[in-house]
């Protein structure tokens, strides 16, 4: 486990555009933000200048280019609503990069990415990193409806093969992305040079992890949890693993499928 320098940065908004229903892409100029940030790491964002809301909010690093960093976010409550009302020039306080990202040690030939809903957020950086290593990429991506499928052009432009599913059938297969993913292994022989990377709702991730374990393919899942500090100090964000409760913000947010306790009782009900 390697730790990168953590910085508290006052970043300046350079863009904040709506990309889908209630979904925005925030671009921040943050010179002092460490360049060494890894795909799958996250930042803690102060989503007010008052005490309401009080705690920071966690967001995956969505993009990192020159002095800029990007966040892909959905408005679900007060913090994200505040974010959606930021304009270019406004300042946002953030801390990062935090946690442990995806690990893609060679020999990796083929990456199977599985995203559910906003789980697509960290994959832009991951795809970029995998491609620089010449890895072939398949993306299984599910959402409620066609309009919630994000980043499709970007992924196509990066010659990622797309396999889509929507719950209402408005695009791709009708159903859940985990079904699509499970289906895949009826046709494809797993190999030791494959690796799965998944991000999305916890129930989906645990399902993917179980499939991965069944197929004996290495698998990283990126979890979410209620966080207070994001720094590993409050012990609030833990998840059940084989070696006890571990911090999503420090030992995670990316965990290997093997390390997690996957039985139903460990799964957060949502």
């Amino acid at each position, binding site marked *: 486990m390697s730790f990168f320098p953590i910085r508290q940065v006052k970043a300046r908004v350079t863009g904040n555009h709506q990309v889908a229903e209630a979904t925005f892409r925030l671009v921040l100029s943050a010179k002092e933000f460490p360049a060494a940030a890894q795909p799958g790491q996250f930042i803690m964002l102060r989503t007010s200048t008052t005490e309401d809301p009080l705690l*920071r909010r966690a967001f995956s690093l969505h993009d990192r280019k020159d002095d800029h960093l990007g966040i892909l976010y959905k408005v679900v409550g007060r913090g994200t609503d505040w974010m959606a009302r930021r304009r270019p020039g406004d300042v946002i306080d953030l801390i990062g990069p935090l946690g442990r990202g995806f690990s893609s040690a060679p020999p990796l030939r083929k990456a199977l990415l599985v995203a559910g809903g906003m789980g697509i957020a960290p994959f832009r950086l991951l795809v970029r990193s995998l491609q620089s290593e010449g890895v072939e990429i398949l993306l299984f991506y599910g959402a409620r409806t066609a309009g919630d499928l994000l980043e499709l052009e970007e992924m196509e432009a990066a010659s990622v093969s797309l396999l889509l599913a929507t719950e209402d059938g408005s695009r791709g297969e009708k159903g859940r992305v985990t079904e699509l993913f499970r289906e895949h292994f009826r046709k494809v022989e797993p190999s030791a040079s494959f690796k799965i990377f998944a991000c999305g709702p916890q129930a989906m991730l645990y399902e993917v992890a179980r499939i991965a374990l069944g197929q004996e393919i290495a698998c990283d899942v990126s979890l979410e949890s209620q966080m*207070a500090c994001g720094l590993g100090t409050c012990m609030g964000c833990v998840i059940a693993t084989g070696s006890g409760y571990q911090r999503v913000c420090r030992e995670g947010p990316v965990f290997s499928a093997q390390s997690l306790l996957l039985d139903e009782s460990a799964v957060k009900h949502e």
Partner: protein
Amino acid sequence: MVNQPSLMPDLSVEIAGILMKNPVLTGSGTFGYGEEMSQIYDLSLLGALTVKGLSLRPQSGNRPPRICETPAGMLNSIGLQNIGIEAFVRDKLPFLRRIDTRVIANIYGHSAEEYAEVANILDSANGVDGIELNISCPNVKKGGMAFGTDRAETCRVVRHVRKATRLPLIVKLSPNVTDITEFALAAEDEGADALSLINTLLGMAIDIHEKRPRLSRGVGGLSGPAIRPVALRMVYQVSQVTRLPVIGMGGVVCAEDAVAFLLAGASAVSVGTANFVDPLCPLEIVAGIEDYMKAHGFSRVQELSGALDMGES
């Protein structure tokens, strides 16, 4: 030291025989074992740091979800997940010894005897400057708050621990009582060297869509700015009745809050939840207290403690 306003106010305080370079501490459970925060700033700038509550054996803590946000505050039910006293001494203390600040070990046990055992281990572990006795954690089933809301139990625990260690002993009081001064006096009578208050208020939050409490354990401890008025009142009340130095905490987020606790009678303040909101806030508080002292002609920070004018009524 001459007792007249100087250009460089003296921020140092001595609490329970522990000399601190300034009166700003960090609260147990909000600062890990210090290590985590050392990536963000130089810990030697703190008056002292208090580590996460330590128990005799490692503890796995409560099932998640363990935290949720509330108006100007948060609930937690961590359940004292910690690596245990031995691993602490072996793995964490070496790092802390190298930092030029005071280290306070917050401890917790399932019985008075277990508390004493933990204290005794620390007594011989080089690098701990003081012990903070957590008899007020609302997040563990047995013990914890039970010790801190029953006068006889408080006496028993403090007595046991007092015998087991020569380290300065700080007793951390629970706010979940009718009259906190009773508990302050009980701890004083049993040989505590200082008091710290307040721990969290017992609270609850409900997810109405799931019809379930937001915390897996149902209830948790409320902290943050929301509880500051209650904390300030208790620090004031306790300071009126005890000669022991008081470490005030509960919702301190800025220098103005810190000064309020000092005026109310505290000798130092501890920053808890605010570490999550703004990690650098303890340093800003140190600087802000200094500014306040300059502006109001205080030369030594001790002069602030209890300098409150209560008026006529």
